[in-house]
């Protein structure tokens, strides 16, 4: 390289470095602002990171909250229902391609029917804790999450199970989408490019309640209807998604699962589950998943921003996430978190979104640590 060029390059390099450092400095200078830092950590690592003081708090779904409490390493600072009461969380999502395939609508209807049956079984078991079904539920949950029954017993009490998609459910999804629009993560332009006029229009077509409405018309079926197994997506050890665990279980129900009751052969799309909703939506986009359980916000943002053609056909749960601080922590409120680091599963997760909302209400910004 010629000397002149090199000098020129060096000058440009210096300018960029100075600009970068100056920007970082200016950002740091705004200490009058109240700031909480975030890092993205996989939920199964959060408890150990909290113990190692790598983060001062974390926000995750159950059973990762109750696990820390039962282990004695953490305590709950706040449940997410204190941030947004009865907030929707996980939903059942179906790939458009599957829905529009031969028999797709019929199979979806039956999937929803099995989901309803499993959810009602869970609700009934939770309502009668002295009975055998509750023990069965705890065992299934412990098996699925690979946690002790002490942890899942605690955790199950903090999740609201349900499948209906009422007006407040739709309002909440509109609210989530609106939050993304306020942050410019979703724009009017991107909504339009997907063929939606407005947020309300988007939710109206993205949430399809007809399967829930018609599920009562479906009867049990003695033979399996689908020649190729339906590929089911779910998240690693996510207690919110117990309905799919119950519906897949054969041993507890006389050798026939609830899915099979409705004539469905269902198999996991990924044995062990996906690490985050975003990963599951990517798998949807690649055509590797037909139906899946995941958080509503990652479903929404991936549908809009990444063209992952899916429809929400049922709710799976509401609430059931918490902000956890270490057992010896002096943090008593969100304000005490200022200047500290909170671990979140990913920026696209509902937990990140709810934490951001809660902090913003207190005039605190959530920034990358």
């Amino acid at each position, binding site marked *: 390289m010629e000397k002149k*060029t*090199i000098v020129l390059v060096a000058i440009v390099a210096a300018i960029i470095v100075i*600009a970068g450092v100056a920007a*970082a400095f200016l950002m740091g200078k705004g200490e009058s602002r109240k700031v909480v830092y975030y890092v993205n950590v996989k939920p199964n690592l959060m408890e150990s990171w909290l113990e190692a003081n790598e983060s001062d708090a974390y926000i995750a779904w159950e059973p990762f909250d109750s696990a820390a409490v039962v282990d004695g390493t953490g305590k709950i600072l706040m449940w997410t229902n204190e941030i947004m009461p009865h907030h929707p969380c996980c939903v059942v999502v179906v790939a458009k391609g599957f829905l529009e395939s031969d028999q797709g609508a019929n199979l979806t209807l039956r999937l929803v029917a099995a989901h309803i049956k499993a959810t009602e079984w869970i609700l009934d078991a939770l309502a009668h804790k002295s009975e055998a079904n509750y023990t069965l539920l705890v065992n299934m949950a412990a098996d699925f999450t690979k946690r002790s029954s002490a942890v899942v017993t605690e955790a199950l009490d903090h999740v609201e199970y349900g499948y209906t998609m009422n007006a407040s459910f739709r309002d909440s999804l509109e609210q989530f989408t609106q939050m993304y629009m306020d942050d410019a993560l979703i724009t009017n332009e991107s909504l339009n490019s997907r063929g939606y006029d407005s947020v309300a229009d988007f939710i109206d077509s993205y949430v399809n309640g007809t399967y829930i409405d018609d599920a009562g018309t479906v009867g049990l079926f003695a033979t399996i209807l689908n020649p190729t197994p339906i590929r089911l997506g779910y998240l690693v050890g996510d207690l919110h998604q117990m309905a799919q665990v119950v519906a897949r279980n054969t041993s507890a129900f006389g050798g026939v699962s609830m899915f099979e009751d409705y004539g469905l052969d269902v198999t996991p799309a990924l044995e062990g589950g996906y690490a985050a909703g975003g990963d599951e939506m990517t798998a949807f986009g690649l055509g590797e998943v037909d139906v899946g359980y995941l958080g509503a916000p990652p479903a929404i943002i991936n549908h809009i921003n990444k063209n992952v053609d899916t429809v929400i056909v049922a709710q799976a749960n509401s609430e059931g996430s918490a902000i956890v601080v270490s057992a010896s922590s002096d943090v008593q409120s969100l304000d005490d978190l200022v200047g500290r680091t909170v*671990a979140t599963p*990913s920026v696209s997760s509902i937990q990140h979104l709810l934490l951001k909302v809660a902090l913003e209400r207190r005039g605190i910004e959530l920034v*990358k640590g």
Partner: protein
Amino acid sequence: MGLGSDFLNGIDKWLTGHWFRIFLGFVSVGSFVVVWWAVALYLHETGNVLWPYVPYPQDVLKAFFSSFVEPVPGPEVFMGQSIAASLGRVVLGFLLALAIALPLGILMGMFRILEFLGMPTMELFRPIPPIAWVPVFMFAFRTLWGPVAIVFVGAFFPILVSVMFGVKSVDPVLTDAARALGANKRDLFRKVVLPFVAPYLMTGMKVGLGVAWMCIVAAELIPVRGGGGLGYLIWVTSDLGEFSYTYAAMLMIGILSILTTGVAGLIEQKVYKWMGMK
């Protein structure tokens, strides 16, 4: 005849000249952008399912410049912060690698026993891609130093190997001649070995720097603290489907890599001048 050959000479001069080279540079980058734009246009116009993944070049450029003045939606970080964070990790990891690989390389090149002692282990570890260390380093060095350690591994081996090879290939005629002229061991090292090794070291440094930049995306895949960095920006924006920003961050890594290699070239020239080689 005279006119014709003048003309041909002119063309020849133009073809090998500075301006033509610059012109070709523009052709190179320009044709890439045109192809990119055409692919984006095709995907967007046909409504192909992949269109969000291939934004138009102008959208990426817009994202690139706006990210310096406005935070990237979602992670809420500025490009400047990301540059500072990544640059810090690359420079720190690289300097650590240099500080250890340079003396080690010289020693292994000079003493055969050290070479035979060190080589088997080195050859075992050298082909392991730095990405493979991500899960281990995440626990061993944690969020602040883990990414630096990954850059370190990437930059370490190219420097070590180049230096060792340089020391080993010092022409024995030169050392013999220097000795015959009365050079002591110190002189021999300073006046013969070091100048001979310098070009090898510079090559090793340049390669090491390139690898260091390649490592940063993998390094920032682990939960990092101390600013997100460009690698984090790539991961998080692709998770959120903001691909204009993903490509903007990739572009920035390319630019920074060119710039840091340029700075290394500048240092190289200074070193040669100082050693009286040019």
